[in-house]
Structure formats: C-alpha cells, structure tokens
C-alpha cells in the first residue's frame, strides 16, 4: 500500500492521522451501536448468523440484478437501523467506489467482447462484457462492504467478538480476540504518544532516511513493549488465580423477535441464492 506523490505531511503526521482515524472509527461505531434501530435490537449471535449468509450469497450470485437487490436490502436495513445513508456513503460507498472503480476501469477496455462505445480520440472500445465485469465487481464489493459495516455499526465490538462463537470458534480464540480488541486502544494510544512526543521535539524537516529510522525505531520500541506487556498481563492474570481455563460470560438471550428476523434474513438469502444461480 503506497501513497504516491511527495506530500507536505511527513511520516509522523501521517501515522498520527492513521491512529486518530482508527480511534475515531471505533468510537463512532460504539455510538452508532447504541441507537434504537432494527439491527441494534437483535441478539449479536443472530445478527452474525443472519448477515454472514447474505455476504456469502453476494459473492455467489451470478446475476447482476440479484446483487443489486441485495444491495437495496442492505440500504433498507441501514434505514431501519437508523444508520444515516450519508455516513454509509462517506465511510463505505465512496471509498469502495474509488478503489474498486479504479481497479475495474481498465477492464472496460481490456475485456474481450462486443464493443458498445468507442472513445472519440483514443479509439479504445468499451465492451459490453467489460462493463458487466466492472459492474459485477463494484456492486459485489459495495454490497458485501455495506453488510459488514452495518454489522459493526449496529453491534458493540466486544459483542461481535463474543458472538463469533456462533461460528464455532474455540473459546480461547474468542478470549484472545476480546483482549486484542481491548489492547488495540492502549497500543494506538501508546503509538500516538510516541509519535506525538517525537513531533513535539522536531524542529525543521527530516529527510527520508531519518523518517524511516524514526518509524522503524517506533515499531521496534512497540515490539519491546509488546513482549514486556504480555509478561505483565500474564502475571496479573496469574495473581488473580488464572490457571489456563477460560470462561466467557454468556449474557446473550434470544427472543421470538430474533428468531423471526433470522427467518426473514435466511429467506432473503435463500431467494437470492435461488434467483442468482
């Protein structure tokens, strides 16, 4: 992943922006998950069991119409869950459109098939098959991304991780995922502080090599902290009586509404599967 072009922002500023973006993204999702919408009301396990098949069906469908219908379902779901469409457009649709659009653009001309339009000056022909291929890629990526973002925006993250047990993930892995999620905030804060302290002591401009050394030294320091922290956490766990067994509080409870909604989602998935064959 590279960012082309010489930018006035240095590596320290860019990294700081990445950390702040990640934190901001996480806080926004936590806020959104508290709203009183359709998806927020559902049991997290049911949500995963309901939305995951829709993402898979979006990948399976061989008809453009079915993928568009699934995208429309995602939009309706967003409206019912009080997720503003402007937020989805800004956070998901635009990003996916730019990335996947950029990737699929040459396919318009490179895919062999029936020419439907020729660019006036260049003489390149857009083929029907190329256009369809680009539409498949963009719509599939948009649909799957919308469903996964909805899942995250309508469920507190810790619940998503715990609900992954519905996919038969071992309990130890679920605990590790939960802890990873918690420590991400600490590490983002640590990394942010490291870069901020560096920035506060910087006068003038660092050349490329110096910036690289600063970034890799930051990564090395974080690695040392990682190993030290894992030892500290282990000792803290031992001091509280941890002997290797892990237990997860299972506070989720399903109601008739959850099962009714699961039936609706599964029906949509089956219909999409049938018509998208």
């Amino acid at each position, binding site marked *: 992943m*590279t*960012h082309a072009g010489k930018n006035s922002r240095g590596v320290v500023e860019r990294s700081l922006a990445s950390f702040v973006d990640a934190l901001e993204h996480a806080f926004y*999702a936590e806020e959104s998950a508290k709203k009183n919408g359709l998806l927020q009301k559902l049991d997290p396990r049911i949500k995963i069991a309901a939305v995951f098949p829709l993402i898979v069906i979006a990948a399976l469908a061989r008809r453009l119409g079915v993928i568009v219908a699934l995208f429309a379902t995602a939009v309706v779901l967003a409206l019912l869950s009080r997720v503003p469409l402007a937020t989805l457009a800004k956070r998901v649709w635009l990003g996916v459109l730019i990335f996947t659009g950029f990737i699929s653009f040459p396919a318009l001309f490179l895919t062999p098939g029936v020419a439907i339009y020729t660019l006036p000056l260049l003489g390149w022909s857009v083929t029907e098959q190329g256009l369809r291929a680009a539409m498949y890629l963009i719509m599939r990526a948009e649909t799957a991304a919308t469903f996964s973002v909805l899942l*995250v925006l309508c469920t507190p993250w810790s619940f998503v991780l715990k609900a992954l047990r519905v996919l038969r993930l071992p309990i*130890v892995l679920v605990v590790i995922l939960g802890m990873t999620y918690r420590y991400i905030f600490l590490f983002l804060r640590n*990394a942010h502080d490291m870069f901020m302290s560096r920035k506060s002591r910087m006068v003038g401009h660092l050349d490329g090599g110096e910036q690289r050394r600063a970034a890799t030294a930051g*990564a090395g320091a974080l690695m040392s902290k990682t190993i030290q922290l894992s030892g500290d956490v282990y000792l803290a766990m031992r001091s509280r009586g941890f002997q290797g067994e892990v237990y997860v509080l299972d506070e989720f409870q399903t109601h008739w509404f959850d099962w009714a909604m699961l039936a609706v989602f599964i029906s949509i998935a089956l219909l999409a599967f049938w018509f998208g064959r």
Partner: protein
Amino acid sequence: MHIPDGYLSASTCALLYGTAIPFWYTAFARVKRLLNTRLIPLLAVASTFCFVIMMFNLPLPGGTTGHAVGVGAVTVVLGPWASMVSVSIALLIQAVFFGDGGITTFGANCFNMAIVGSLVAHFTYRAVAARTAIASPRRVVAAGLAGYAAINVAALLTACELGIQPLLFKDASGAPLYAPYALHLAIPAMMLGHLTFAGLADLFVAGGVVAYLQRTNPALLGQKSAGGATKDASPAEASGWRMTRPLWIRLALLMLLTPLGILAAGTAWGEWGAKDFSDPLMRQQIAAASGQVAPPSEPPRGLARLSSLWSAPFPQYAPPFVRHPAFGYVMSAMFGCGLILGFFLLVGWMIGERSAVGDRTST
C-alpha cells in the same frame, strides 16, 4: 494486498479457507504447547502489535509512503507459528471492524500474508542469518530480506488467485464474474508495485525493527519462538519429532495414496514423450485431450533430440523391477520423498558444519 469481498469466487474463498484451517490449527496447537498458560496474553498483545504496525507510515524511495504488513518483523521475533496466529487475528479485526479486506476473502488474505508470508519470512531469515551472532549486521539484512520476500510471495499468490478468476468464472455473455484480469495482467500489475515500492515498506520495517532490537533489547532476538517460551520446551519438542509427527503421518498417507493417479483416464496434456507421436492409440488420446486437434505426424525435432539426453531410472513411476503398477507408484513416492529429505538433511548438515567451524575459528 488485502483482497476485498467480491473479488474472489465463493469456491475460491472456500478452498482457501479450507487450506488455511490446518495451518491455523497446527500453529495454534504448537504455540499453545510451547506457551501453555502464557498463550492468551502473548497472542492477544502480539496480535495488537501486528494490527498497530500495519498503520505505521513509512517513507519510501521515490517520494511515496507505504504501510507495511509487518509479517517479517513479527516472524523474526515470535517465530512462524505465533506469527501466523497473530497476523491472522490482526487481519480478522481489520476485516471485521475496519473493512480492510473482506470477510469471505479472509481465508485467502490469511493464507497469503499470515501463513505463507510467515513461512517465507521464517525460512528466508534462517537461510540468510544462519547462525550468526545476534548483533551481526547480517541479521538486519536477513530480516529485511525476509520481510521483502514474504510480502512479494504473498503478492504473487494474491495475483494468482485474482488472475485465475476470469479463466474459471464467467457469466452467460462471457463477462468475468469476479476479478476481471487474467494472470498475464494480474501478475505484472501486482508484482511491479510490490517488487519496487510496496515491498520496501516491509523490508525497512523488518530490518529496522531487528536493528533497533539489536541495540536496545537483543534478548528478544535470541528467543526462537513465541516470546521466549522455548525455554520450557521439552527435549522431545526441541528435537522436533513430536512436533512434526503429524506431518510425517500425513506424508506417509499421501505416499500410500499415490496410486490414485492410475484411476485417471486419458493422457496428461503436454506430458507426451517422443514415442507417443508414433503410437496410434496415444495419438488418439493426444487429439482427444487437445480439442480434437490432430498431433503432428512426427515428434517435434527439438523434443526428439532432447528426449534421449536423460532416461529416468523409474520411467512413468514404474521401476522396471516392479510388476504391480500401484506398488511402483508407492515405491516411486518413497524414493522421491527420500531424495528430497536427503537433500535437505545434507544442506542442514553442511550449514551446521560450517557454523561450527566458524564458531571454533572465532574462539
């Protein structure tokens, strides 16, 4: 590098999930055996590190900046198995919460970056660093190369996975259903960026982390796997037999299954010998396998000339002294595996000898 949802067909995704699962299982089991109760905190914090390291920006030559995947640095410090699990968890959190990489393509992304990336980084680092001292500059080079090789092999795999999509999955009008570029476009497009710029991010991060740890915390580089837990490993584990036993069993099973090839009908396309062109029955099979295009009446001259250069001891996997073809296949499999193992044992012995001589001369 992170393949989003919609770029790979469901069957490709399922296949790569299926391929990744045994690696995840083995990696998890190995790390668990070594770490015991330390497993949870170490993997949680290591996964966090992987996640955060992927957000570091790095200036690259040419005025660009890039993000590293960090698999090289993590593998060098934690070992390949802990790296596999940690990078996979970081990728899961990236996919689920940040939309970087798809959910259906999570298995593919893990296979490319976490699994193959960790193994490539591990073997590259071991091969280049050999048994040099912890503070040796060669280790910095080795780590850099490990990161660079890992990311480029992962990119190549990604390109291959994307490149086979239009060959296999098209709609009724012939439009590709998933990633639209065939291998001849996908591989150069992906590799050009990674071999030149994107791969350098991992080269710098892995090399830089090792250089930094050499100065500040060399003990971390001395531990072979998973944060120093190897100290508790039993002699049997250290010898590697217990750890590799399931792999030996699987290898033996695969050897026994080799005669399955006999069941296949027809001829393997392109694997014809010079004599096959004059055999009427074989000519029919060649034509059938080539879309009813009749083969030339004589073998191509180059093929005829070069085919006599080397005659294999076990032609067609059938040693001349074995009458039963199935037994011949098993014999050939044993012989082939034995040769490969012998070669690696010899290389390992030579590297060990050379290092021992180096140690003796330095003292």
